[in-house]
């Protein structure tokens, strides 16, 4: 019997594939070796630079001018790496003294013009790096440039700008941040973080804008959950009459943050009877810790059998209202249904905390 026949073209094709495979495998192996070599080289170089410049960095941060001068004299090719050594720890360490000294050193090393140049780079990742660095350094002279970057074409540069403004905490940037609360192209978590960074400073801007822009009241209510104070309460009380249930729910959540007065508590109690469960739940949440003259306990107790999110908020609010609320929970805990188990759970958690 003979071997099976294969056309010459096919065997030629297989031979070509063999050589193609060989070249491909060799290329991949070279790429792996090259990548590892570059990585290894960078590790070694960075370690050497750390060994050499970290003592200077430490001393310069302690205010030693000789060490700062030594850093200034470092070869230009090492400057960006040293800047990275200086700036990266600021992500976790937001000590104002350290930030100010780092900024001084970076200025002395003439790195701010470099960052400004990078801000104008055509490569988006370079712009993003420069923006983040300037934010971490709290370089307030560059606030305008960072605000301008909020309108960059690249979403990751815009995200970096928002991060930088969060770190910068320059009140001059607050209005720019508040105005962009509705900008869905900016990451949601970052918008919240930026607003949280300014705390109650953002409140007046939010209230002013909310007055003229009632379409986005939901976002303003959510923002007031982060930075609202008693000043926002009258506006929030008005918003509890908003026709949109999600706005009303968010408003009560914001009121839970700002705390209630007699008028707000009365509104929350009234809204416990709202047709929307989300509004009832947030109204119950707002009443958590309420100890004013209006007695909310009987109204809340009725909602232990309500829809689940409302029941949970009502039970937690009752627990926070002292003996009268606890008595309601104890009364309910003898039941074997879900409300009874919920009451038992809340009472157990209270005891466990003690």
């Amino acid at each position, binding site marked *: 019997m003979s071997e099976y026949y294969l056309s010459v073209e096919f065997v030629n094709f297989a031979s070509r594939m063999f050589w193609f495979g060989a070249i491909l495998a060799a290329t991949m192996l070279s790429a792996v070796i090259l990548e*590892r070599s570059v*990585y290894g080289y960078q590790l070694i170089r960075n370690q050497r630079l750390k060994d050499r410049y970290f003592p200077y960095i430490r001393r310069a941060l302690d205010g030693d001018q000789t060490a700062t001068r030594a850093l200034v004299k470092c070869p230009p090719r090492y400057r960006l790496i040293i800047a990275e050594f200086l700036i990266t720890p600021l992500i976790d360490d937001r000590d104002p003294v350290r930030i100010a000294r780092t900024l001084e050193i970076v200025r002395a090393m003439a790195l701010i013009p470099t960052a400004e140049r990078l801000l104008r780079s055509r490569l988006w990742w370079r712009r993003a790096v420069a923006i983040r660095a300037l934010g971490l350094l709290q370089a307030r002279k560059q606030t305008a440039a960072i605000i301008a970057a909020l309108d960059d074409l690249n979403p990751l540069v815009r995200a970096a700008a928002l991060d930088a403004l969060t770190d910068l905490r320059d009140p001059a940037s607050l209005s720019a941040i508040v105005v962009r609360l509705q900008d869905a192209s900016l990451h949601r978590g*970052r918008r919240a973080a930026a607003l949280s960074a300014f705390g109650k400073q953002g409140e007046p801007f939010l209230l002013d804008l909310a007055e003229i822009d009632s379409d986005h009241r939901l976002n303003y209510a959510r923002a007031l959950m982060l930075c609202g104070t008693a000043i926002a309460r009258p506006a929030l009380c008005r918003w509890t009459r908003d026709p949109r249930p999600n706005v009303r729910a968010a408003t009560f959540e914001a009121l839970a943050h700002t705390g209630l007065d007699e008028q707000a508590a009365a509104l929350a109690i009234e809204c416990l009877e709202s047709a929307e469960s989300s509004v009832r739940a947030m109204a119950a949440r707002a009443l958590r810790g309420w100890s004013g003259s209006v007695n909310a306990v009987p109204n809340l107790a009725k909602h232990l059998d309500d829809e689940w999110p409302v029941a949970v908020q009502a039970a937690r609010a009752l627990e926070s209202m002292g003996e009268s609320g606890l008595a309601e929970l104890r009364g309910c805990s003898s039941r074997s249904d879900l409300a009874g188990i919920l009451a038992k759970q809340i009472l157990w958690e209270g005891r466990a905390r003690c």
Partner: protein
Amino acid sequence: MLTTEALSVLSIFSIVVVSYFVLWNLAQMAMSPVASVFLWRHERRYTRRARALVDRLAAPPLVSVIVPACNEELTIAESIRALLELDYESREIVVVNDGSTDSTLNVLQRTFQLVPAPLAYLQPLPTEPVRGVYRSLSEPGLIVIDKVNGRSKADASNAGINAASGVAVLIVDADTVLEPDALSRAALPFLEDPKLVAVGGNIAITNGSRIEHGRITDVALPRSWLARFQIVEYMRSFLLFRLACAAVNGVVIISGAFGLFRRETVIAVGGYDRTAIGEDMDLTIRLQRYCRTRRRPFRIGFDPHPLGWTQAPEDRQSLRSQRYRWRRGLLQVFWRQRGMIGNPRYGVVGLLVLPYMLVFEVLGPLLETSGCIITLLAAALGLLNWKYFELMIGVSVLFGTASTLLAVLLSDIATHRYMRGRDLMLLVAVSILENCGYRQINSWWGCVGTLQAITGKGGWGVMKRRSFESER
């Protein structure tokens, strides 16, 4: 006459096999630029400053970490301790003791001062009855649900999802070792993008690495060749295929070892299917189907960093039963979701990802095994063209090695694991040697798994587990 016909069949079959091989390897190569661009963008997007967002938020969303545990007495205490040290503060841990017959519950009770406690929650997902709920006096964020064994991880996961109060649920295996920043890394896309419904993570293999107090302290390749082969398999799967899928929002598998899901969406699709063999893939595809059917903007993300580490089987029996199970799971999912394959309504998943998997994962082992069998037969009958055979073996080994090295390259960029010179030599050896036996055995197991799927036989199988301290 018969011989002439046999020879022409052999010729045609050779062409099919060669074309298949070339196509598979070219597909792997085609994925690489997509995966590389995704990786590059990911590295620049989730910088260290970006990851600090969680710390800058006043109230990060609550994430419930769900740990289904069945007979995990050896590793459970270490696993939970490690979970309690995750750097994401706003989390609760829900351990579901799925009717363990060993002392898993006792170990938990002893270690974390558990006491019976009332816990009220709705049960939107049906599960086997819950026998009791325990809470820890030493760790306020720890809840243990003790339930009747549901004979599937899906049932235990559903029980955990029911009891969870977080907006997102992280499902992890009890023996998964998590990186300290795994949760904050995985939660970050959730904070950024309200459209995100799930995030999967890269899973690495613990074998050979040193684990101390539930943390990986030294990464090294294992001594076992079976485990080494699986390491490169995981690299290919996670850093080539899944990255490429993630780049086009076509992720169809989020590993059961680590997956973060939006709770309300998981409940909306009915949670894990208790009858599914590959419950992780089944859930991910159902999420894709649910969102695409409703034309709802959504995204399923993937983090190329190793967020979790898991033990790979080192003995042939455990590996074989795992592969049988994976195969049955794959075929079951494909059968159930056959309406999605090639259907433009399901976008890139229907038109690209599932057809790719059908051709290369569902049919691949059958074709490869039949290729081997026919080659052996031809050799036995003296019909084999040895020159051509050598050429084909060469093509197969070289292309296989190239695609594995590509995965190693991506792994290097993403994780910088196994960076010693010896590791590189071993990885090259592994990528060559896996083509000389391991792949063929795997294909054979795939065929047996297919048979089991058709006949409805086969069980979960038992994997020999070791405690973390005995890893090295």
